[in-house]
């Protein structure tokens, strides 16, 4: 019965809670997919495919659960190299929709970039756990960022900007978790905010003052702080100049296209307008299961993956979305609880990293459906249709299960 206890109730109270939340999310996703499939029981419907993916992923989950955490820790470099090489495979295959992101297995596609994300986290966690004593030093951030950069650069060439950006999502939370000091983390974010703030004079001025106060508040050599402060200000000042005068219109467009490779040829604003109309027309309690006139194949493409939350919002209303958001919140909170209670530093870091990936997917996807972010092909964990990502979610689940055993 120990097997049963382990897998159903979990080896601790959190694991049981985690499985309950995941099952609820999957059920919710399947109910929604059933509603939007024209012929749900045919083998080609997104519903049936999802059922098969889940069974398959569950199978992999049970296998991976047998692997010892120490094995993963000791072989983290090997795992990374393997995932890294796997990303090269698509370059030797015929491109799918003009990109080299996918390995075609006939029935479904595997996106090696997804697995590189996990491997990157494990490698960073190992590095941080091996250098725990130096964590207060500023230079500790260099190697983790370098690892993330290498992975990101590879994925960028597939090209897959969405995944390339998501690879960075776990870095800051992991560094924070590891105990890197706040000022160092601030230095990492500052240039990014500076460039974004540079688009508007007012915001840029406020940011300049804010940054000045933060720089004053932290300790360290005065000269160093002044240099970094002005480096930031100059970057901000130069960026619009560089953008407007040094790049011609064609190059700017290239840059925008580069930032938005997933832009649908039909025009992404059309999708967002339709998504918002679908969500808004759902109201408090929704139009009912299978009754969403906006999302029922009429207006939204990729609704079974990218825009599934719009379907839920239209058919189940704010009520449904609140349940889904609550489940997402509990999912992430439970994972953080597990990381916090974990007795081992390495496991704890890995779980935080994996949690960040799930969270960034949830946030970017939801924000996209309500027009807070540009269209990016990032699916929602456990809810969106799609084999490769579902498998990744189960792999994450299995790593968490493994890492919380002690």
């Amino acid at each position, binding site marked *: 019965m120990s097997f049963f206890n382990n897998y159903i109730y979990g080896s601790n109270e959190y694991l049981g809670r985690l499985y309950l939340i995941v099952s609820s999310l999957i059920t919710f996703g399947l109910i929604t997919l059933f509603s939007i499939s024209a012929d749900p029981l045919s083998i080609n419907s997104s519903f049936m495919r999802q059922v098969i993916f889940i069974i398959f992923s569950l199978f992999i989950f049970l296998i991976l659960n047998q692997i010892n955490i120490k094995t993963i820790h000791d072989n983290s470099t090997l795992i990374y190299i393997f995932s890294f090489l796997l990303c090269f495979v698509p370059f030797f295959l015929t491109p799918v929709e003009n990109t080299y992101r996918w390995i075609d297995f006939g029935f479904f596609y595997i996106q090696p970039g997804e697995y590189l994300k996990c491997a990157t986290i494990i490698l960073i966690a190992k590095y941080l756990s091996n250098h725990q004593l130096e964590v207060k030093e500023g230079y500790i951030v260099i190697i983790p960022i370098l690892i993330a950069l290498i992975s990101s650069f590879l994925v960028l060439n597939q090209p897959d900007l969405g995944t390339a950006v998501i690879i960075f999502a776990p870095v800051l939370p992991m560094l924070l978790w590891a105990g890197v000091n706040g000022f160092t983390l601030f230095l990492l974010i500052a240039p990014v905010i500076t460039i974004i703030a540079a688009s508007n004079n007012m915001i840029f001025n406020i940011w300049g003052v804010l940054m000045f106060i933060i720089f004053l508040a932290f300790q360290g050599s005065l000269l160093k702080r002044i240099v970094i402060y002005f480096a930031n200000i100059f970057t901000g000042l130069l960026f619009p100049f560089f953008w407007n005068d040094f790049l011609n219109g064609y190059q700017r467009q290239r840059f925008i296209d580069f930032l938005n490779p997933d832009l649908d040829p039909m025009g992404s604003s059309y999708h967002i307008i339709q998504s918002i109309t679908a969500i808004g027309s759902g109201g408090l309690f929704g139009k009912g299961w299978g009754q969403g006139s906006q999302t029922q194949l009429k207006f939204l493409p990729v609704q079974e993956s990218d825009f599934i939350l719009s379907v839920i919002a239209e058919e189940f209303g704010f009520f449904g979305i*609140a349940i889904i958001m609550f489940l997402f919140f509990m999912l992430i909170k439970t994972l953080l609880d597990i990381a916090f209670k974990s007795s081992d530093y390495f496991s704890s870091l890995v779980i935080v990293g994996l949690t960040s990936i799930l969270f960034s997917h949830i946030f970017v996807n939801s924000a996209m459906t309500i027009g807070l972010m540009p269209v990016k092909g990032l699916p929602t964990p456990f809810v969106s249709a799609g084999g490769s990502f579902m498998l990744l979610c189960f792999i994450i689940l299995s790593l968490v299960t493994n890492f919380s055993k002690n």
Partner: protein
Amino acid sequence: MLKIENKADIFHYRTLLFILSFSILTLLSRYFYLQVIEHERYSSKSQVNSVRAQATYAPRGLILDRNGVVLVENYPTYILTVTPYELDDKEKQFQIISNITEISVDELSTRYKKYYQGQFLPTIIAKNLSFAEISQIEERRLELSGFQYKRFDERLYNDVLKDAHILGYLRELDRESLPFLDKSKLYRAGELIGWQGLEKQYENELRYSKGIEYIEVDTYGRKINRINDNNIPAYPGKNLTLSIDSKLQQFSKNLLTDQRGVILVSNVDTGDILSMVSNPSYNLDIYRGETTDSEWRDLLSNEGKPIINRNIAGLYPPGSSFKIITALNLIENGLLDPEDSLMCTGSYLPPGSSNTFNCWKEDGHGLVDLNKAIAQSCNVYFYETVQLIKLSDWTKTAKIFGFQNKTDIDLPNELIGQIPDKEFFINTYGRWGWSERGVLLNLTLGQGDILVTPLQSLRYINHIASRGSTAKLKLNANKKVEYYDDIILSEQTWDRVIKGLYDVVNSEAGSGWRAKQSEVKLYGKTSTAENPHGEPHAWFNGFFDFEGQTFSLVVLVENGGGGGAVASPIAGQIVKFFTNEQVEIVNK
């Protein structure tokens, strides 16, 4: 378990929890704003006016012959679609449509089910609507919410060439076949796709690129407004120019009258196929409008198998033309002196056997050398000489000329035929059920287990005409000229064989004398291929020089009788056609 203890700070935990709560609350408040506060606005927006992306189409590319004669063009018709969600009263509305179009309600319901792709997507339920019908539908617009008509191009064929075998046809995609398509994302149910022949082969070139138009529609699906932002125009497909000369094609077709068979004519230098006739054929108009199931069944069960393109999918024993394979082997490998003569008494008794093998000429050819053996197609000469060749060498030579291999013609569904080798015989007749010497007696006459397509036979004659280096056969005039692997034999070998082929037509007792034309030097080989289906198949494979270029032809009359008597005169007619009228073939 691992050495280092987790010392996660409660402050870090709380920071992350705070970020999480903040993000989720931000998302939720935005959802709340859209769904509860702004609900009225979006609700009415979703009910009254909707922006709908609709596909726009452009014409499919035309198909022309080499001289620019339009063989396939587009013919505008109107189709009627219905959007299931927008129907008020399906029964009543179908009845109205049935009254207007005279299509039964049952038939309408059947199509509705067959092409249904979702509650909100238009389903095609009627085609070929006349202008009068369209006007009636327009008059009763208010009763017919959910119904829309739109222009839809069909293929229109020129009377000169309605040959289903080459051109192929388009098929309407239905729900069942859609998921099995390679590029299913590009297609929607109810659209047309090249399903056979050139329409299939060049689908990517001929097909238009779909455009997208954004329109605002009201609850009745009526267009209120056109939105120009982000519209993507549709582009017509590319035209396809064929190597076929439609006059020659028509002329060749008439030569076969109602006999089953094949006529192929090609330019040896470019690989262009000028004529490709497969008789019987069937009229492409069957794909226009409504074809009933029984018409289809008749076509499929027809004894003459009109569905099959015999050029690429008909398998026949090649007969005596394969004597050339033996001859090439003999000369190239120095197995005999071509000048040496044998005595043909009309029959051959293999050593150690009691079965005699007969020559087609009962009282024998007398003294025969290689040249005479080819010219008069003497069986006994080849019975005796083939005994000098190993089976493996003989099959290898046949395969070098492209037999049991695709010709790479730009048509789908080409068959490769069969050249039996040792393994084949062991599998078929067992280890001891055959002898190498015995089967060679059959193979050298192109009989037995050999099966070839007429197009392979054309490739074979082109290899000989070009002395080993010939262009790949093709139907697209603008396709780059590519070459088959060169066949390297000594000049003397080619000379001997080609001289033999010349004498087939031009010598006094040559088997193909009926093909002879005074103005043009024609080379060729007749075949009379025995088969289990009745009379022998009559073949003529040949080539000729005309105004500095080399042309080749294959004539096959199924169960027609003797190659010399039946196929040769047809070949002669084709050559005559070149000299009489068609100079423009050469100039292009």
